[in-house]
């Protein structure tokens, strides 16, 4: 992609994402320090919860959304080899999302929206927080439109031809996000905003939680799909090999999108407002969505195995050592998969219906999602950044060795941070506490783990700063050397010439999703309108 206008668009998105990221890392380190109780000067419940709310919003909404939008534009232009449809609209979407972010940040940073990023009605925040978050989502909807129109136009211009895998997956993600965000959009538009402005007296927290659960699971796949795209379309080439199976990749993306949606109730296992049959149904669906990840693991590792063997690796496992560990993308995928093993296992435990009682709302849960989001997902965002930055700014990467060090420290920091978190969870420490004040024998055993987490957070903060340093140095370097790299998408071992339409488009899947959503959310949402429910009035905090 050599078009300066599009490069600027992509870079703007990615910079917003990574600046949000480093700020959030700083807040994260403050939080582990505060919680340890080692530094009485830092103890402030108000600052802590304002910080947690901001950390969550920056990481989960700002970093992800802006990264996904920027990366999506890049993939659309580079994989389809055509200019972006409607560049001005893309800029409008960027500015709407950015204004929304700033609007939400003001109440967050001033402690007027300490409701954490999952909102928690009937506690209400300042209306600006909800309105800002809504604008961020509206901005991302425009991105979805651009992606889907681009996808449709290319297909029309190339009848029968398989859509390049990277674009297929990006379009899948756009479709997923439209479905995903509908739940929280309903909650915010019909419940939270009118409630926070005083237009309605009460809301039903049970309904609000159900709507949020609609969004809460697939949103993590929205974040994860760019990582899987990198797994499939960048990693095999960078490792010196080929994609093991293009078709299975498509199958995996489709199953991911279709089954990520109707399963949100594993967030509500411990809630009283939904019945056990619905919970069990969603629970089984949750296990189904583990399948595409198992398939992805196989396809990606098989691609790596072939690359390793092409590089001279022998024996059952000799190919692992033969891989180019000094290629940032390859190193990142290895570390990412390692974290996926443990993060994925934690997820299976969470998903296990009644067993959820063992870990629900304990420290295990943030341990789990930091490992799988901060670890598996974000390390690939970083690897993508290292890969794209030279292409976007036309200068070579500032330092490959520093980049490798950054990836290693991110992995090590994440391991140090999340291991104690999991243990604390099994010991029963609740999540979302700013200090441990409980005066009980059972809770005294928690202290040493808190100290380990400070160290982990510190390593991660250092690593995040190093990332920003490398990216900035790359971009600001004097343009002495001309960099003439091209983006390289991996080719499959067996070229794909024709595909059944359902592996090349989403028309039928969109209908399948509609049916599944109607089945799994229809009654659980409608019940609130048939039961005698008692709404809650607004509370502060």
């Amino acid at each position, binding site marked *: 992609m050599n078009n300066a206008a599009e490069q600027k668009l992509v870079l703007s998105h990615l910079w917003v994402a990574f600046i949000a990221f480093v700020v959030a890392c700083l807040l994260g380190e403050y939080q582990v320090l505060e919680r340890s109780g080692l530094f009485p000067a830092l*103890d402030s419940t*108000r600052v802590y919860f304002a910080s947690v709310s901001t950390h969550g919003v920056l990481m989960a909404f700002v970093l992800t959304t802006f990264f996904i939008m920027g990366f999506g534009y890049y993939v659309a232009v580079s994989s389809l080899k055509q200019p972006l449809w409607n560049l001005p609209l893309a800029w409008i979407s960027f500015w709407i999302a950015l204004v929304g972010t700033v609007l939400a940040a003001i109440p967050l940073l001033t402690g007027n929206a300490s409701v954490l990023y999952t909102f928690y009605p009937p506690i209400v925040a300042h209306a600006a927080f909800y309105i800002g978050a809504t604008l961020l989502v509206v901005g991302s909807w425009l991105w979805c439109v651009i992606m889907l129109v681009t996808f449709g136009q290319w297909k029309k211009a190339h009848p029968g031809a398989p859509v390049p895998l990277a674009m297929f997956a990006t379009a899948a993600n756009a479709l997923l996000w439209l479905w995903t965000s509908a739940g929280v959009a309903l909650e915010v538009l019909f419940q939270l905003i009118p409630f926070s402005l005083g237009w309605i*007296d*009460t809301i039903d927290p049970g309904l609000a939680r159900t709507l949020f659960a609609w969004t809460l699971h697939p949103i993590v796949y929205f974040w994860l799909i760019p990582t899987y795209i990198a797994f499939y379309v960048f990693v095999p080439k960078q490792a010196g090999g080929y994609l093991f199976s293009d078709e299975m990749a498509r199958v995996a993306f489709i199953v991911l999108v279709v089954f990520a949606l109707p399963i949100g109730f594993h967030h509500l296992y411990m809630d009283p407002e939904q019945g056990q049959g619905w919970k069990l149904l969603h629970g089984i669906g949750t296990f189904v969505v583990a399948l595409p990840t198992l398939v992805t693991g196989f396809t990606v590792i098989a691609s790596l195995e072939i690359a390793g063997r092409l590089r001279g690796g022998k024996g059952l496992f000799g190919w692992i050592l033969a891989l180019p560990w000094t290629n940032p993308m390859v190193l990142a995928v290895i570390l990412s998969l390692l974290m996926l093993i443990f993060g994925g296992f934690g997820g299976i435990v969470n998903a296990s219906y009644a067993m959820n009682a063992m870990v629900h709302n304990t420290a295990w849960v943030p341990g789990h999602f930091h490992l799988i989001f901060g670890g598996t997902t974000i390390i690939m965002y970083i690897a993508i950044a290292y890969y794209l930055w030279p292409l976007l700014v036309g200068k070579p990467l500032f330092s490959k060795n520093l980049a490798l060090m950054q990836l290693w420290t991110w992995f090590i920091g994440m391991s140090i941070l999340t291991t104690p978190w999991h243990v604390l969870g099994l010991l029963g420490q609740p999540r979302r506490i700013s200090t441990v*004040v409980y005066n009980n024998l059972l809770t005294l055993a928690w202290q040493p783990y808190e100290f380990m987490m400070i160290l982990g957070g510190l390593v991660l903060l250092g690593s995040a700063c190093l990332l920003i340093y490398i990216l900035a140095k790359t971009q600001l370097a004097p343009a002495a050397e001309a960099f003439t790299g091209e983006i390289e998408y991996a080719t499959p071992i067996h070229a794909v010439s024709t595909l059944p339409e359902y592996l090349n488009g989403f028309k039928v899947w969109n209908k399948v999703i509609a049916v599944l959503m109607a089945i799994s959310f229809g009654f659980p949402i409608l019940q609130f309108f048939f039961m005698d429910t008692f709404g809650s009035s607004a509370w502060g905090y």
Partner: protein
Amino acid sequence: MKRLLLLLALSTPLLANAQPASQIAWTPAMLNLVKKGNAEKGKQLAESCKSCHGDQGQGLKAETQDGETIPAVPALAGQLATYTFKQLRDYANGDRSNETMNGIAKNLSEQDASDLAAWFGSLPRTVGATAPIKARAEKMVALGDGKRILPPCFTCHGSNGQGEKMDIPALAGQQADYFASTLLAYKKAERHNDIYSRMRLIAQQLSEEEIKELAVYYQQLK
């Protein structure tokens, strides 16, 4: 249907054995009644309150005359309307006892209580006399005491002592003598119109010394 259920819920206590701490429940209807309080009407009604609660609703400290202690009178200026309203209704219903106030409140309608609450809520809070603030009080307000399961005061009463929804009273500028005697009354369970003993359980954990220090702290809070 909902209204019917509400009526049922409200009528059941009459059948129950023990009295609830208060008859007031913050249903949306009740909250709206307080919200619609007319401050102008409240102002007229409040004329007769001035002799005890002061021109500006600032209250009075305790005084000793001829060896007899005249108890302190609470500041009402800037108090949450929901709180004032609930106290007036609790006095009227006999859930909170004070000879003078029980008599007065019985003669006030719900609407009067709501108007008065609105009027006092609209007055600016006054800041009381200064006395040295103890670090222990500041710590209790900001951090509480985990060992005794005492939450920090600010978590409910606000970081500026401004009170909190639904009916957590504002404490900033409150008469120290009144503050102390109220907490002592909670401690001894002489006052018991806190639903589920919320404040009684806290006050029981506080020493008399701590209560006095907190009283000084809050009187000076702006």
